């Protein structure tokens, strides 16, 4: 480990998150155009970044078909006007797509193979509904390798409620309302302006300029949430109000070797310390962040109290409350998702890791006393991941 170099976060951008579906922001916009928009914005914001020096363009997408096909890391490099000498590739780890782009890119930098890498994630769930084109092996069910519910994310969240009876629907809803409130506050304070770039999108009404996330429902109350259906189970606890949405979005970050960043006058805002990916039971995939984070803390010799801020994906409120309970943190812990999360903002699967990392960077920028921050996600088919960053 001793001769690893520092992989540092320089900058990150994303487009506003839209709602999937025919009325959403991006209904008539190609996924690859969204990717290109973020790459162009990254170049625009960092004039010191000579595009010819970019060593790779790494992009994750869960469904690599149609406008997300053809190795989107390469197609988007060409479409964005990067020199043809810049390569790219595409990867998939579902919800942890962008986070895996980031750890892959960081590793290439850490071992010294590359110096400047764009890493991101795209998911246009309007064009590519979850599971599009998938053909699960019949052995999964015939040999009971996973339960029927493992492939339906909402059912895995109900399963988690079953396993953790202390997490009632009321607590989940309370957490969801808090997410909406925190997002509304952060939006008013301009937090997202630090990394959200507007995009012109085509629609039946001509060109529209999208500037803000489409998904949040500010002013949502517990009473509002109490009226929602529980689509995954009669009398269940999981609703559209305490779960992430189905969304479209693209986001990426620029990672650099620390010396290269200094050479080019690019800001080094935080360094990647370490990360873990773990597997858990697919039927309760929302449990993933807990063992991932436990293992990461053990490896690094840190305790949860050493962590100043956690950016956690909010696939389901129950998954977040489980994490908070496990680490003995209150439901309204100020250091977990201080700007709210995916329940309000939406969750374009492979993109979310980029958004969480960008928000962590913004937190560090505005909190001089902070040192360590975590980004953590749960992943379908039972995985969890956690990435530790240190403020520079």
């Amino acid at each position, binding site marked *: 480990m001793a001769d690893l170099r520092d992989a540092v976060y320089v900058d990150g951008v994303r487009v506003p998150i839209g709602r999937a579906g025919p009325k959403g922001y991006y209904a008539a916009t190609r996924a690859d155009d969204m990717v290109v928009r973020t790459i162009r914005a990254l170049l625009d914001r960092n004039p010191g970044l000579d595009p010819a020096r970019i060593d790779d363009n790494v992009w994750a997408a869960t469904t690599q078909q149609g406008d997300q096909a053809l190795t989107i890391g390469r197609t988007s490099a060409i479409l*964005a006007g990067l020199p043809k000498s810049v390569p790219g590739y595409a990867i998939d780890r579902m919800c942890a797509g962008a986070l895996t782009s980031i750890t892959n890119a960081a590793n290439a930098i850490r071992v010294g193979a590359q110096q400047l890498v764009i890493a991101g994630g795209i998911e246009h769930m309007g064009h590519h509904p979850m599971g599009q084109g998938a053909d699960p092996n019949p052995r999964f069910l015939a040999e009971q390798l996973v339960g029927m519910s493992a492939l339906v994310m909402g059912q895995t969240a109900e399963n988690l409620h079953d396993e953790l009876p202390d997490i009632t629907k009321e607590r989940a809803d309370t957490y969801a309302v808090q997410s909406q409130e925190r997002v509304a506050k952060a939006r008013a304070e301009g937090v997202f302006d630090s990394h959200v770039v*507007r995009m012109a999108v085509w629609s039946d009404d*001509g060109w529209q300029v999208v500037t803000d996330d489409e998904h949040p429902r500010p002013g949502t109350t517990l009473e509002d949430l109490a009226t929602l259906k529980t689509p995954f189970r009669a009398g269940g606890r999981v609703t559209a109000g305490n779960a992430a949405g189905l969304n479209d979005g693209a986001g990426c970050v620029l990672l650099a070797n620390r010396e290269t960043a200094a050479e080019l006058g690019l800001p080094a805002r935080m360094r990647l310390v370490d990360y873990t990916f773990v597997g858990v039971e697919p039927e309760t995939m929302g449990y993933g962040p807990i063992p991932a984070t436990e293992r990461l803390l053990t490896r690094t010799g840190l305790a949860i109290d050493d962590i100043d801020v956690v950016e956690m994906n909010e696939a389901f409120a129950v998954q977040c409350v489980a994490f908070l309970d496990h680490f003995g943190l209150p439901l309204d812990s100020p250091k977990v998702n201080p700007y709210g999360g995916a329940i309000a903002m939406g969750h374009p699967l492979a993109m979310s890791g980029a958004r969480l990392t960008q928000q962590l960077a913004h937190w560090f920028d505005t909190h001089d006393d902070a040192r360590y921050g975590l980004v953590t996600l749960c992943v379908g088919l039972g995985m969890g991941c956690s990435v530790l960053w240190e403020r520079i």
Partner: protein
Amino acid sequence: MAELVTAFKVGYADSRRVGRLAVVTMDNGADYTKPNTFGAGALASLDAALDEVERQPDVKGLLLTGKPFIFAVGADLTAFTDATEELAREGGRRGHEVFGRLRDLPFPTLAAINGACMGGGLEIALHCDYRTLSAKAAALAFPEVFLSIVPGWGGTQLAPRLVGAANALTVIVRNALDNNRTLKPQQASELGFADRLLPAVDFFEDSLALLEDLVSGTTTITRTPPVEDDLDAVVDRIRRYADDKVHGATRAPYAAIDLVEFAARGGDLAEGRHREEDALAELLPGRQAQAAVYSFNLTQQRVKRQPWKPAAPPRTVTKVGVVGAGLMGWQLGALFLQRCEVPLVMKDIDQAVLDRARQAIEGELDTRVAKGRLSAGKAAFLKSLVTYTTDDAPLAGADVVVEAVVEVLDVKRAIFADIERVVDDGCVLATNTSSLSVAAMAADLRHPERVVGLHFFNPVAVLPLVEVVRTPATSDEAVATAFAIAKTLRKSAVPCADTPGFVVNRLLTRFMGACGEAVNQGNDFAQVDDAVKALGLPMGPFELLGLVGPRVAAHVARTLHDAYPDRFDLDPNFQMLGDSGLPGVYDWSRGRVPYDEVRERWERRAGAQPLTDEEIRAAALEATADEIRAMLDEGVVADARDIDTCMLLGAGWPFFNGGICKYLDQTGISEKLFGAPLVGDTDRALAGA
């Protein structure tokens, strides 16, 4: 066809920096293959859009742009046909009124020219305060003068104010008359039409950011007025250019020059707009504009849709043979090689001819490499595809063989018989004959159904027409293959019957005969050329003769005389010229002066009186009309429209005459001679079909 209405769709971008910006998108709801155009419906939509924007209390700026890949390509041509003077004037007035509202908005306006931008599209952009231009926009142009009208929605008045008279005239007049040449974004930007040339990838976002900067005042745009030559000289130069192109036969370029000159001399904008309306009222209902729209529809729609194409699937072409490697043969070989990129066999009986063909074909490839249009590796590969041979054997396996040998029927028959011995039964045999009977060439073959005429025009790389000739025996597959090949070669194919001279050569020969007769009557060659050019033809008949070659012309004339002795005299003067070995009538080393030998040996009729210019034109036109009538009666083409297409694309006759049939109808010659117009609206079967 009804107007596909371009809607002006209003949206708003709430800028964090400067507040509310209106975003107006022009969109006709179709994809880029049907570009945005402006008719009455579009103008009403713009009017309503401006009402909507003006109702908003807090708009700080406006961005106008188009649907993906298209800004707007000008007026809706469907409204032009049969437009009256009143309609034309009202159309101009309405455009001025609504575009004027855009110009008068009290906040900064920016046209974000994201794609193809022509005519009225460019005019609406000129009504905005600022313009950004996508570096990948397809083209910018003022095509109006090409259609024998003028830019009539402020283009002639605003363009010179923005870019100066010389640049405005280049685009409005010179480019329009130069085969409707368009500007690439870089060129348009250099001429001053855009304030910023921006990359396509961020074009909208960067344009919006510029508008924000202009609204907030963080950016100001200052334009340096172009350094102008003396206006008199500029105007004089462009008038002479127009004379050279149209010889006064259409008023449009001259009207456009006058309008630009008026603006450039500081003319009042309101008065300039009135003058544009006057010009539209005069020109749009006029003969030339109506003919130009007709020509446009023929070449852009009828030829592309190919209503005559058989349903049979064409044969896939994986190997091509060209027999006869002379001037025509090597040009065909070069074209096939570069467009089809399949193995090519060049066959000739003369090794020296083959050597020259090889030099020419490889030279053409090398030129493209030198210009950076072809990689050296690809050129080497293409060269490797060609076999130059004096044997027939290498033609085995060809899917199509084109013969371009000397115009002697027995030679062509023998060659086809030889080829048939080596190729398989499905191979299509095409002849590039300009006047011989295709059926006679095929008669003795085992498979006469495979023979089709594929008549190209010299220079092959330049002239876009191919006459596709089918005989009564020709199979649908062979004809379908001929049309498919024409498309691959990017040529416009018109079907015609197997009759001597087909369309273009037959008409030009009859026309030429009448002109020759005028010389026989005592007129000068140059006088006849000039008299005929006043119709707007690109060159006079004797100038053209130098291009075609007197020997070829004499041969075609003899063939036509043999076929139709009543209408095609065998003028000994043309035969003399053909036999003389001279390259034409004129000795260009001395200017447009006939060779002494021609002057001495050309026999005039004794006691004949020279004709007036008017009489020369009348005689030439009536002879042409007579021949067209005969061709239609004979079933050479499906309709007179196809004769016009051939003359537009194969002879370069002007759009503003609609080829020739349209002109004869418009000027009453058809009515006088036949009591009815020539141009119809239904297609009839070809002779022998």
